[in-house]
């Protein structure tokens, strides 16, 4: 076990705290996130309402907790879709090479020509909005980046001695790919996962902000920000609280990723 660096430790602690808060938010929030209260409209942050209330008298802290949960879940599912299919594609093409590899790499080049946000918009306009479609669209958008990272790792390990030995001992391709090679790609895969997660949070929040992602009653942080923008003059704390939640989430996971990359001893950029 390599030593933890400061970055990784700080990142893991922060992420852990946020994760605990988000889990808590699924079961308990200080107030009902959708309950309106005529008497407590547009209150600035106080001890009773940590982030104040909006123009319907809803408690913003409770809404942020619940919204962060939605954003978190979607980002997690998105990364799962992208990572599983991307790793599979990268592993197969990197290990076997050949013509399929060449064709898929060209396709990959063409796909990276679309800014990820643009590709997500195209897919969403094909599928329609809603929670599952956002996950599907963003998951597909993230496949190429995972495929590229794992393909490079697999291609560089393909001719390693331990692989040749495993082959000599009669191990099948599937076993070599996932039992012998996969653990050796973790040092590149883990940072890629944190970067992917952050991109997913950002993309989901952007799309929901634009009104084509997750739609109420599944209020995500992005949708809440668009709501907050219309109350900017009367309740700026709504936008600030919601936005800071997004920033904090990305910051902690980003710090963890930075720590993981430093532990590997070499910076690599996404």
């Amino acid at each position, binding site marked *: 076990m390599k030593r933890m660096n*400061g*970055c990784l430790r700080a990142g893991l602690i922060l992420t852990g705290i946020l994760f605990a808060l988000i889990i808590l938010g699924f079961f308990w929030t200080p107030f009902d996130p959708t309950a309106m209260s005529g008497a407590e409209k547009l209150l600035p942050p106080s001890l009773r309402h940590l982030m104040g209330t909006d123009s319907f008298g809803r408690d913003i802290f409770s809404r942020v907790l619940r919204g962060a949960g939605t954003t978190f879940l979607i980002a997690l599912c998105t990364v799962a879709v992208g990572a599983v299919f991307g790793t599979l594609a990268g592993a197969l093409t990197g290990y076997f090479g050949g013509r399929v590899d060449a064709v898929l790499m*060209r*396709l990959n*080049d*063409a*796909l990276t*020509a*679309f*800014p*990820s*946000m*643009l590709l997500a*918009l*195209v897919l*969403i*306009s*094909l599928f329609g909005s809603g929670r599952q479609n956002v996950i599907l669209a963003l998951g597909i958008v993230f496949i190429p980046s995972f495929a590229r990272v794992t393909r490079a790792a697999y291609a560089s390990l393909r001719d390693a001695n331990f692989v040749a030995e495993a082959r000599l001992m009669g191990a099948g391709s599937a076993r070599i790919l996932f039992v012998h090679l996969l653990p050796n790609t973790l040092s590149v895969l883990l940072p890629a996962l944190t970067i992917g997660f*952050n991109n997913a949070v*950002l993309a989901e*929040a*952007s799309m929901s*902000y*634009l009104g*084509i992602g997750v739609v109420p009653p599944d209020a995500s942080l*992005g949708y809440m*920000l668009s709501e*907050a*923008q219309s109350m*900017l*003059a009367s309740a*700026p704390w709504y*936008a*600030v609280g919601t*936005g800071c939640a*997004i*920033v*904090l989430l*990305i*910051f902690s996971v*980003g*710090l963890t990723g*930075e720590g993981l990359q430093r532990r590997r001893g070499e*910076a690599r*950029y996404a």
Partner: protein
Amino acid sequence: MRYAARKLLTLLFTMVIVSLLTFAAFSLIPGDPATARLGMDAAPEEVAALREAMGLNRPLGVRYLSWLAGFFTGDLGSSYSYSSSVSALVGQKLPATLALSLLSFSLVVLISIPLGVRSVGRAARRRTDAARTAVNQLLMALPPFFTGILLTWLFGTGLRVFGVRLQLFVPGRLPAFSVHPGGFLLYLLFPAVAVAVPRIAMTVRMLHSTLLREMNQDYVRTSISRGSDRAGVLYRHVLKNAMVPVVAFLAQTMAEVVAGSIVVEQVFSVPGLGRLLLGSIGSRDWPVVQAIVVILAFWVVLAGTVGDLIAQRLDPRLRLGGDRR
């Protein structure tokens, strides 16, 4: 020269693939555009006539080629929901997006390169390193639409700080460039900053580690042992070598800046391609969506190719087909 020719060929090839993918994706959408335009209770003869007029009865391949040719002749068909041609609509909205992306990109280049170089010029200390990492990660975590909202709040809503009214622009009222160029640029400066901040942080971080790795090379030690000072070697030799991966990264930044402006245009109500794109997705106006997607993707591919050509100028080894280090 052969390198440039090969790059241009790849550029054309990628553009064809990009347009083919886009065209294919939108051809898959169920529903007949002619029916969509005339309404569900239109007479079948009318629909058939419109299908013929829109060229929908031609084979898919022919439709693709004539559509692709439209990017050169300027005839991209007509919008479903506006009674004007796609090229007129796009042409009207293109300048704002172009100006916003270029402004934002210039901010990234002009701010991040000096900052990145400075961060290496001085000897690293542990405390400052930790602080820099924290600030850097924090800036990277700032989503452009959130920064944008904060900027509109501070400078757009007439907020008073110590009795001073900070209003520098009125959201939703972008002055025309021809009438008031200064106001136009000032307005766009805010969305450009919102898009640029996280990219600046990323570029500084990348430049910092690239420069540090380069400073550990043997030729740097040789040069210093022969009496050059650290800063001199940095500016005379290291910077040029370290720029190669940075140029590639900046080309990618162009893509992110374009994507960022799609979202940020909405925050600041900038009448650009991003807003047109979102509106057209909302009204299922596919010809407009298709055209914008392809134009933005072409722009990104073009930026990538220019980046490759500049990198090759900086590192002649690339011309011989060598890999980037």
